[in-house]
C-alpha cells in the first residue's frame, strides 16, 4: 500500500479541502483523518460509522482521599505541577492532595512512591476511533476526548487501521489528512509514509512554517511535494515558497488560486471538485494528476513496521 500524507506546518492552509477533493478523485483509496485534535474531514465526507473502538491512552494518577495522609511527597516528586493541596479532608487530615488530571502526564512516579498506597493508576479511555463508509470509500477517523493527550499514539492507531482496511479490501492507496505543527502527531503521521504533500499559503508565516516542516520530512526521509494554496493572495511569496521547496528537494506541483467556491463547497458538505468547475477545482485536479503519478514510483508505506511511538532509535552517546 502507498500512503500519501497531507501536512502544512501552519494551520488553516487548506489541507482538509485538498484531501476531500483527492478522496473524490482517487479510485480505490482508503481515507484517514490523522488530525485527531481537530478532525474536520468527516464534515465533508459524511461518514456512516460501521465500527467503533475505544482508544486507551496512558494512565492518569488519582489520589484516593480516604487513604491520603497529606504527607506531600507526591507534590514534591511531581515534575508536571499536577498535584494540588486542595482535596477533601478525611477523618485524619483536614485536607488531602489531589491530582489535576489535565496536568498529569501519567508518569506514575507519585503512585510508585506514595508510602500509603493512596494513589491509583488506571489506563484511561482517551477517545474513540472509527471505521466508516463514505461515498468515496472507507474512512478511518477518530475523536480524541476533551482535553486528552496521546494524540501521536492515536494517529499511529489510525494509520495502522487504514492499512488493515486497505489490505482487506485490496486497496492500493491511503490518503491521510495531517495536523498542523511539527510535533508529536505530525511526526506520527509522517513516519514511514510513502509521500508527503505540503499545502502552504503564500504568506511570510507560511514560508517560515514550510521550512520547518520540510526540514522534518528531510529528517524522516519522506519524499515530499508542495502545493501553494490561495496563490494569488501575494504576488511574490508563491515563488519564494517554491524556491524554498527546491532547497529541500521538495517538488512544487501547482498553485491553487483563491476561490470562494472552496468555502461554498465546505458549507454544502461537498469537496471542491464535486461542487465546482472553477479555478480552484481545476488546479486541484491537475495537482492530483501529478501526485498520483509520483505515488506510482514511491516506496510502500512502512506504517506496519513502526512502533506505536515514532523514532525508536537509541542514541549511543546517551547510554
Amino acid at each position: 500500500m502507498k500512503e500519501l500524507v497531507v501536512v502544512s506546518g501552519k494551520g488553516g492552509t487548506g489541507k482538509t479541502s485538498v484531501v476531500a477533493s483527492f478522496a473524490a478523485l482517487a479510485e480505490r483509496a482508503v481515507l484517514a483523518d490523522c488530525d485527531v485534535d481537530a478532525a474536520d474531514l468527516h464534515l465533508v465526507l459524511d461518514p456512516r460509522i460501521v465500527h467503533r473502538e475505544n482508544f486507551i491512552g496512558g494512565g492518569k494518577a488519582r489520589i484516593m482521599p480516604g487513604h491520603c495522609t497529606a504527607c506531600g511527597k507526591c507534590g514534591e516528586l511531581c515534575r508536571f505541577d499536577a498535584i494540588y493541596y486542595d482535596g477533601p479532608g478525611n477523618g485524619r487530615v483536614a485536607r488531602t492532595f489531589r491530582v489535576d488530571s489535565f496536568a498529569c502526564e501519567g508518569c506514575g512516579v507519585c503512585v510508585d512512591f506514595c508510602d500509603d498506597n493512596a494513589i491509583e493508576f488506571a489506563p484511561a479511555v482517551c477517545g474513540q476511533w472509527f471505521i466508516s463508509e463514505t461515498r468515496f470509500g472507507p474512512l478511518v477517523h477518530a475523536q480524541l476526548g476533551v482535553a486528552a493527550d496521546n494524540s501521536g499514539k492515536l494517529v499511529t492507531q489510525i494509520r495502522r487501521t487504514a492499512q488493515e482496511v486497505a489490505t482487506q479490501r485490496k486497496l492500493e492507496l491511503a490518503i491521510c489528512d495531517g495536523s498542523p505543527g511539527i510535533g508529536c502527531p505530525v511526526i506520527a503521521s509522517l513516519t514511514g509514509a510513502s509521500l508527503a504533500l505540503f499545502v502552504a499559503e503564500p504568506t511570510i508565516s507560511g514560508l517560515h512554517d514550510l521550512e520547518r516542516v520540510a526540514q522534518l520530512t528531510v529528517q524522516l526521509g519522506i519524499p515530499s511535494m508542495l502545493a501553494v494554496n490561495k496563490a494569488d493572495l501575494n504576488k511574490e511569496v508563491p515563488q519564494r515558497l517554491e524556491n524554498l521547496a527546491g532547497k529541500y528537494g521538495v517538488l512544487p506541483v501547482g498553485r491553487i488560486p483563491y476561490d470562494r467556491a472552496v468555502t461554498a463547497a465546505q458549507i454544502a458538505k461537498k469537496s471542491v471538485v464535486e461542487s465546482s468547475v472553477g479555478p480552484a477545482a481545476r488546479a486541484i485536479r491537475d495537482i492530483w494528476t501529478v501526485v498520483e503519478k509520483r505515488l506510482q514510483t514511491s516506496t510502500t508505506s512502512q506504517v506496519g513496521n513502526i512502533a506505536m511511538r515514532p523514532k525508536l532509535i537509541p542514541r549511543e552517546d546517551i547510554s
Partner: protein
Amino acid sequence: MKIAIASGKGGTGKTTIATNLAYVAARNGRTVAYLDCDVEEPNGHIFLKPTIAEERPITKLIPVVDAARCTHCGKCSRICRYGAIACVGKQTLVFPELCHACGGCMLVCPEDAIQEVAQPVGQLRLGTSGRVQFIEGVLDVGEAMSPPAIRVVKEAAPDTDLILLDSPPGTSCPAIECVRNSDFVVLVTEPTPFGLHDLKLAIEMVKALKLPFAVVVNRADAGDEWFRNYCEQNRVSMLAEIPDDRAVAEAYSRGDMICEAVPAFDQCIRNLLDALERKIPGNHHTKETR
C-alpha cells in the same frame, strides 16, 4: 492578567489577534508581554519584529546511565511508563525521544547509577518590540514533545499588566499546556463549518479546564447569520467580529503589523481590547491611566 489566545482550528488568526492586541495595549500605555507558545511554528516574531536581547537553550532532562554502577536490575525499565529506558542484556538503553523527564528511573535506581543531564530541545528568545516585551520558544525540528518547551516560555513571563499567550492550534496537550492557569481565554474562530466544529471542541476544552472564555469571529461576512445564531443560542459570549478584508489578508501575507497597515483593523483591535477589559472581572489595575 494572563490572557490566552487559542483556537481549535489552525489558521483562524490567533497570531494576528495576539500580536495586534499587544501592540495596541502597549500604545495605550500598559506594560505588555507577548509570549509565543506555538513553539512548533512560532510566527509572532514575523509581525512584531522584535530586537532579541537574549537567547538561551530550552532543555529537557534526560537520564544517563553510569555503566560502571549499573547492575542491570531492570527497575528503571519497569517503572518507566513511556518505554524510554530498557535493559537489554548487559546494556541499559535510553530513548530520549520517549522520555518525559519525570525522574522516576533516577529515583528508583538502587545503585545510584542514573543521573540526569540537560539536553537541548529548542531555543528561548527574549527581546522587545517597541514597548512590548517579546518572548518566544522555538522547538527543534524533529523534537516531538512541545509541552515542556511551552512551560519554559510561560515561566519566562515578566511581571506586566497584560500577558498575552499565543497558543498552538488544537485541543490536546500543547494547547492545554498553553491555556491552563491563564485568567481568560479568547477563542479565535472563522465562520465556516470547519471553524464552528473546531470551536465547539475548543469550548469543550476550556470548559473542562474551568476557564472563563469568549469568542472572536475573524473574517466575518454578511452571510454568517447561522454562526451568530449558534453563539446566541448556546450563550457563547462574542467579544468581536472582525470583518473579512482582503487588505488585512494582504498585509498579513507580507508580514506587516496589521494595525499599522489597515486603519479599520486598528479600530477593531481597539474595540476588542475595550470589550476584553469590560469582560474580565478584577481587571481594574490594567485600566488605562493618564
